[in-house]
């Protein structure tokens, strides 16, 4: 199999380039892309990429594989390789630090903007803040996000306005706390989002939904936020 991998070391390279490597894939196994990266690193130890849990839980190895974002560790060759060729690039739209390692600062800054923690100004009860099973159910499909950035870096609106548009990952978390029955800062949260960029730069093209490795739906969450903003303003 031919693997074409994005290489850039700012200390030695003037510009990024694609390195083509012919790789012998062991027969009878369906490897994950992360396994392929490990094989590549055996051949060329200078290749840099992030990985940690290698089972789709930590969200470190978000990559662009044959044009589609996903986690290298849970994307099998059988689902991504076309015509015996695999092109691996870093997540699009973020500055490259080296090879497949991107600088996620701007992504985290947008995440920080939505205050991704419970805000509650009432006195804490002795043990814990209780929630009914129905209220808890509202957080399903929201809390599972692992912040791998596959969604936000597949979103053209985030590419054009990464410092103004919060992006699908941040907005999914914004709604996660707007929907939480224990949170008392709904009005403050909504007030921060009512500008033409933070939420409304979403054009609903659903790239985020098609790439999310956890099967989440940020477009639906953004729709819910928009409805809350409309109810608040009309």
């Amino acid at each position, binding site marked *: 199999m031919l693997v074409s991998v994005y290489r850039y070391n700012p200390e030695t390279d003037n510009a990024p380039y694609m390195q083509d490597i012919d790789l012998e894939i062991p027969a009878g196994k369906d490897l994950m892309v992360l396994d392929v990266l490990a094989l590549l690193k055996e051949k060329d130890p200078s290749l840099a990429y992030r990985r940690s849990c290698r089972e789709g839980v930590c969200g470190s190895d978000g990559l662009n594989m044959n044009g589609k974002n996903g986690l290298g560790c849970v994307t099998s060759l059988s689902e991504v390789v076309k015509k015996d060729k695999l092109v691996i690039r870093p997540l699009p739209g973020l500055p490259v630090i080296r090879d497949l390692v991107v600088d996620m600062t701007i992504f985290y800054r947008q995440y920080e903007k939505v205050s991704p923690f419970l805000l509650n100004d009432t006195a804490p009860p002795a043990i814990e803040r209780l929630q009914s099973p129905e209220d808890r159910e509202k957080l399903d499909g929201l809390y599972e996000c692992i912040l791998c950035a596959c969604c936000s870096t597949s979103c053209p609106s985030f590419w054009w306005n990464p410092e103004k548009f919060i992006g699908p990952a941040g907005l999914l978390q914004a709604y996660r706390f707007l929907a939480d029955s224990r949170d008392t800062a709904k009005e403050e949260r909504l007030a921060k989002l009512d500008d*033409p960029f*933070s939420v409304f730069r979403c054009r609903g093209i659903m790239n985020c939904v098609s790439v999310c490795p956890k099967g989440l739906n940020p477009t639906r969450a953004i729709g819910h936020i928009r409805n809350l*903003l409309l109810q608040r*303003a009309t």
Partner: protein
Amino acid sequence: MVSSVTNLGRSGVYDWMVQRVSAYVLALYTIFLFGFMVMTDVTYDSWSALFSQTWFRIFSLMALLSLGAHAWVGLWTITTDYVKAAGPRFLIQALCGAIMFVYVVWGVQILWGN
């Protein structure tokens, strides 16, 4: 909160609403005009008779204002996506605004003038 002074309504939800409402008005106007052209024989007389009625002038003015607002929201969005330098972006937005203003005033003159 991202601040912005060049968009139509300062607020995201306002622009979003204007875009939707104006789209409905434009769609109704287009369907009506299309229906008129199909159902009647379009001559100078039938056309000027249509435009001499107050309700149709009001409908046309509504469509014209909707077009101006719709185009402003849309073009503002496109320029903020694709024109990165603030100076040229502002100039393009000002040019779009001026053209839309001319169209609206000119349209009012055509509709209500002699």
